[in-house]
């Protein structure tokens, strides 16, 4: 097992390198970071020249990648633009944990990401829990009461939820539960932010502000997962051992909780692990609409500003997370299902 884990981890190194090269080239070609520097005004000619040089954007793309990867503190850098290298660079490179400085915010990328990661995790983990609970409940109910009215209702809703663009769902929820509820004099949900500044960052506030974004992200995923649980459950309850369990006189509740659920829920583990990237994508739009200060929104604003160090930082960290999550899911799976062995 240990050897398996080590081998998988070693395999991720070339994988992450490939990912980073692809992304670095894409990110560098997609826009002009200096264009956004000017804000409402166009950037002036000589400032553009100076900043291009200072940010190292005048170098060939592969050199830029090399510097991003291994830093430039071992080579001299031209600071005043006379073409003669003056001092050693200050960048250490990603391999030594230096993701560079944001072009826009002029401070270390890791610092920026660190501020956002926890916010995204709060949102995403809540979503995961909500998704798991609801998709299991709905899925199991639909399987046990197959072809009942509620089953059809759930099925219909899950397909509709699955077929809606997420931003549309977000806006509709926002307008019903925030704007219209207020107009009707009902208690209404906050539209933006993580907490009310006047109250402060309390658990209650965050939970209250989280309702609409979590609902937005969850509805879509619950739709997909509950269908999955339903079909898994249907398969499991037709198995012989379930029939045996019924036959020996166990009450339905026991059969479901003790035997069927465990086996039906297993594959969900893999799916949840695999869907982490999907959730993060959902976060890009949802976080922007609900002004949630997380990674998805950071990515979108960095993409708009072509803030390459931030983009690269987020993408590499997410890719690494995804790879690691996959390994963890695979390993968890062996614990949950003793039939599976890796060697």
């Amino acid at each position, binding site marked *: 097992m240990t050897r398996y884990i080590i081998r998988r981890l070693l395999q991720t190194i*070339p*994988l992450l390198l*490939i*990912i980073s090269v*692809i*992304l670095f080239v*894409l*990110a560098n*070609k*997609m*826009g002009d970071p200096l264009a956004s520097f000017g804000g409402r005004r166009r950037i002036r000619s000589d400032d553009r020249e100076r900043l291009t040089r200072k940010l190292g954007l005048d170098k060939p793309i592969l050199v830029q990648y090399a510097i991003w990867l291994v830093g430039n503190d071992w080579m001299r850098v031209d600071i005043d633009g006379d073409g003669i290298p003056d001092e050693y660079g200050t960048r250490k490179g990603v391999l030594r944990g230096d993701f560079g400085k944001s072009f826009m915010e002029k401070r270390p990328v890791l610092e920026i990401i660190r501020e956002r990661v926890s916010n995204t995790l709060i949102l995403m983990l809540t979503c995961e829990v909500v998704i798991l609970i609801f998709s299991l409940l709905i899925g199991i109910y639909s399987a046990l009461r197959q*072809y009942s009215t509620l089953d059809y209702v759930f*099925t219909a809703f899950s*397909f*509709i939820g*699955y*077929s*809606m*663009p*997420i*931003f*549309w769902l977000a*806006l509709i929820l926002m*307008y019903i539960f925030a*704007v*219209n509820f207020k107009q009707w004099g009902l208690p209404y949900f906050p539209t933006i932010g993580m907490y009310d500044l006047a109250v402060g960052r309390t658990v209650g506030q965050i939970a209250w502000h989280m309702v609409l974004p979590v609902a937005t992200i969850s509805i879509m995923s619950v739709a997909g997962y509950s269908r999955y649980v339903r079909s898994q459950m249907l398969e499991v309850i037709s198995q012989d051992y379930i029939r045996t369990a019924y036959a020996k006189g166990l009450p339905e509740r026991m059969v479901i909780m003790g035997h069927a659920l465990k086996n039906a829920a297993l594959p969900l583990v893999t799916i949840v692990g695999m869907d982490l*990237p*999907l959730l*993060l*994508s959902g976060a*890009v*739009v949802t976080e922007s609409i609900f002004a949630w200060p997380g990674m998805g929104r950071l*990515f*979108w604003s960095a*993409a708009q500003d*072509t803030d390459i160090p931030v983009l690269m930082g987020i*993408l590499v960290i*997410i*890719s690494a997370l*995804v*790879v690691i999550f996959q390994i963890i899911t695979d390993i968890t799976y062996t614990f949950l299902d003793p039939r599976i062995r890796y060697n």
Partner: protein
Amino acid sequence: MTTTEVSWEFFEEEIERPPLTPAQVAWRRFRCHKMALVGVGLLIAIFLYVIVGAFIYSEADANRTDLSITLSPPSRDHPLGTDGTGRCILARTIYGGQISVLIGLSAVIVSVTVGVLIGAISGYYGGHIDAILMRFTEAMFNIPQLFLLILLAKLLSGKIPTFKLLGRSFSGSVIVIIGVIGLTSWMYLARIVRANFLSLKEQEFVTAARCIGSRNFSIIFEHILPNSVAPIVVAATLGVASAIINEAYVSFLGLGVQPPTATWGNMLDQAYHHLDSEPWMWFFPGMLILLTVLGINFVGDGLRDALDPRALTQTE
């Protein structure tokens, strides 16, 4: 209860008749899948809407602005109302639908082509080619799709000029969007195809084909590929749905098809500021997206059940 009876009749019929080909079995199963039939019905209705509609409204109608009737609610002249520049929403949903469906289908063609090619080559040849291609696939797979969409859409925007096809002029951005969506959604398919090829290439019929001197090309495309059509069809069907949704996403993020060409996605985006004041602007394109995607998902679900190889072996 009724369903149980139906399935019994189904089996009785089957016992009496000569064995069916897998395709016939699939069709029978599909026919019995109520939601799939609803889906087919929905899709036919949508197709009629965007095609028959085009005989009633011309493309010029869809793009004609009229500043005297901006943002007017549904009326006799404009049954679905008008948008911010006085264009007829009905005509725009018809032509927008054509483009959205076109994008959905073409993007899937791109992703299926790339996915099948990479999956097939990787699975058939194995070894180093497999290792390299699969590392690449895995790398692309590990980057969330929306992130790739944003990067590619920004990279390619404005790079392709307007072109004429079948007497209509298309914004180059349509091609860009098709390419971008296609190139960010082939990875899943490549993996399925590869897995299929890995198991199929060891089977007797492949060995037989090799023995009689078939070339690799013909083995891949004439012998193995037809045997892995089922998962490809299912993935492609569902791919159309997600391509249509992705088009809406890209439009929403301001990277979509350029004006004046309508798509359901950019119509939704334009309605963004009119959520509570002019609901007809978002309701109709939104419903059309919803119904189309719903229809496709129903059909895909039906196909999945109908083409399930495990199910097939059971009936055979």
